[in-house]
């Protein structure tokens, strides 16, 4: 009887002690990371690696002690490729869950849907895709490559190698339209000619007419900035019709891994400039790929979005630890020093203080007839210089605008 009571007391004590330890830990609440990535819907095949990259980074960071000693809690919602849902879920994460940082968005349309909502808060937002560039917004840090890193390298190379006439196939929304504008500007500077431009509604999957329009215009090469699984059918149909033209792109291969999804030789003679592609063969990259595939053995391809999403969390960690704060203004003070850098699998990348975009080591890659990827040229590290040159300086003024070659900041 008595001994039983003692045992009971001991048990109660043990429970209390454990509870106290638990409470001590709870005093350091986890950092909430809100993640919006499509893992269903038309872009799921691109969004899945983004979710995986974020999960891998969170797991690694948590294992090694978290950020400033705090664990990361990843709250992922799936907007299913619907811009209205991006806004709804964005509000939910920012206002209800009160996340410390928001990450994500696939299309430029979803980013632009999200940005005004983020701007009304003081939460930092990381966009992790390569894109058409030009966003000058203090709330946003861009982790992907931009036109001065992708088009200013690729287009001159294509012109020199294949000729001055280009035909453009672009998805009909802000990404495709603004990318095409970049192409027009760079081609004009090079003395080249855009012999045709076709904007294609998302979801269109039949390209017989487009293929014929291309043959009629007789270009030297194609710029393919078509987006999504339906529009990707272009490659298969062009190969079947024996179109046989060199192609260049800022999103093919490293982002959409079309060379893994289509049967060779549909992607033969495709060229792209990328800061990441799975075929990168350096010790750091190989180590990263090994960790990724150990956690996600079924991954078809580690695309650049997924890779950038992984880096975004490490960049966030670096900023918070240098600022010793999770507040956007403190983090931006670190960015303003120009010393916001991490050692990424591609090499050292840093955030540019003026535009809050990321420097990248860019390589030009080519796809061969068996869909083998070879590196044609290594450009070294390229800064995201364009926004700074045209007058965006976030250390002085928050424009909250997106600039393009035809929409430049007004001189004041």
């Amino acid at each position, binding site marked *: 009887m008595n001994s039983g009571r003692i045992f009971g007391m001991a048990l109660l004590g043990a429970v209390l002690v454990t509870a106290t330890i638990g409470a001590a830990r709870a005093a350091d609440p986890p950092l909430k990371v809100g993640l919006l990535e499509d893992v*269903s819907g038309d872009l*799921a095949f691109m969004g899945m690696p983004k979710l995986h990259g974020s999960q891998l980074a969170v797991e690694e960071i948590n294992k090694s002690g978290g950020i400033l000693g705090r664990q990361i809690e990843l709250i992922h919602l799936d907007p299913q490729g619907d811009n209205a849902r991006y806004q709804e879920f964005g509000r939910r994460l920012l206002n209800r869950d009160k996340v410390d940082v928001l990450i994500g968005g696939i299309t430029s349309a979803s980013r632009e849907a999200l940005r005004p909502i983020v701007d009304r808060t003081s939460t930092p937002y990381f966009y992790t895709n390569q894109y058409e560039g030009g966003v000058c917004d203090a709330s946003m840090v861009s982790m992907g490559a931009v036109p001065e890193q992708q088009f200013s390298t690729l287009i001159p190379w294509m012109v020199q190698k294949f000729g001055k006439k280009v035909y453009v196939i672009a998805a009909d929304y802000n990404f495709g339209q603004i990318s095409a504008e970049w192409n027009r500007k760079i081609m004009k500077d090079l003395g080249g000619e855009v012999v045709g431009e076709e904007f294609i509604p998302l*979801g269109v999957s039949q390209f*017989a007419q487009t293929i014929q329009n291309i043959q009629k215009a*007789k270009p030297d090469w194609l710029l393919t900035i078509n987006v999504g*699984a339906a529009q*990707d059918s272009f490659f298969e149909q062009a190969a079947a019709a024996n179109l046989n033209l060199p192609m260049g792109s800022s999103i093919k291969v490293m982002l959409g891994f079309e060379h893994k999804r289509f049967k*060779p030789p549909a992607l033969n003679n495709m060229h792209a400039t990328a800061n990441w592609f799975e075929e990168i063969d350096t010790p750091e990259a190989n180590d990263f790929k090994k960790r990724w595939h150990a956690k996600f053995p079924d991954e078809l391809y580690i695309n650049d979005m997924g890779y950038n999403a992984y880096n975004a969390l490490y960049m966030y960690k670096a900023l918070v630890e240098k600022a010793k704060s999770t507040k956007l203004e403190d983090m931006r003070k670190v960015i303003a020093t120009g010393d916001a850098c991490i050692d990424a699998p591609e090499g050292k990348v840093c955030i540019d203080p003026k535009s809050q975009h990321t420097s990248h080591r860019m390589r030009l890659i080519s796809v061969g007839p068996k869909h083998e990827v070879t590196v044609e040229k290594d450009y070294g590290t390229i800064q995201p210089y364009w926004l700074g040159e045209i007058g965006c300086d976030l250390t002085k003024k928050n424009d909250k605008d997106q600039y393009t070659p035809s929409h430049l900041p007004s001189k004041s």
Partner: protein
Amino acid sequence: MSAELFSVFYQFADVFAFLILSAAGLAIVFGMMGVINMAHGEFIMCGAYVTVGLVNLGVPLPIAQILAALTAGIIGMVVELLIVRRFYKRPLDSLLATWGLSLIVTQSMLLIVGSAVRGIGTPEGSFAIGGYTFSTYRLVLFGCAVAVLAGLYVIFMKMRFGVIARATMQNAAMAKALGARTGRIYSISFGIGTALAGLCGALYAPTMTLIPTMGATFVVESFVTVVIGGANVLLGTAPAAVFLAMIRMALNASYGQIIGQIGMLFAVILIIRVLPEGLSSVLVRRGR
């Protein structure tokens, strides 16, 4: 000049084949039976995935395509038995039920098969006329579309089954009183409809990217074709496809894909406004 002429025919044939193949199954299920099948695209997706799966197992492409169509047909009959049968008198509820089915199927495919499957490549073969090169397989698709129309004509106009089926759709109680096994007729008709959807997916599988939501690419065109075609499968769907294909081809060629799509949908609105019963109402009246 002959190259230009052929290219116009080729473009027309290409759009026509796409409209007919994506709409043929729906013409039976929706046009004849009155079931608003929101899972039509998922039967197309089923045909595509089965084809690719079988080809990867080493089955020759044409056989894989036939087996895929049969699979979609059998699954369709099961779906009819378990779900659709309960909604013949409640068309709006059938819309909701099949839409739910479509969501469940796409999401399950995403979870089971993954977000993308490697394609199998279009069968080799292209030919050149003038400065243009064309894919032979696109002409095969056109041939298949014509064959599907001919097959439907034979089944529903010449065969005993077709006559009974049409009678059942018009007046099930009377047909039953005359000894038709209407339950079986419904089941087989639905099966033919979904088999044709599966065939569409099977035929387009080599030319497209396979993702679980791929059916959506076909759904707008198929509904539009059936709706402006009207109730009569043969007298409606074929002329509707010819009409829409001409508009779309002409606009695509001169103004690009955006205007092509807008123009086609605009024509659809006009036709529904002027001929609410669809093209077949005019053609049938003339025929009498």
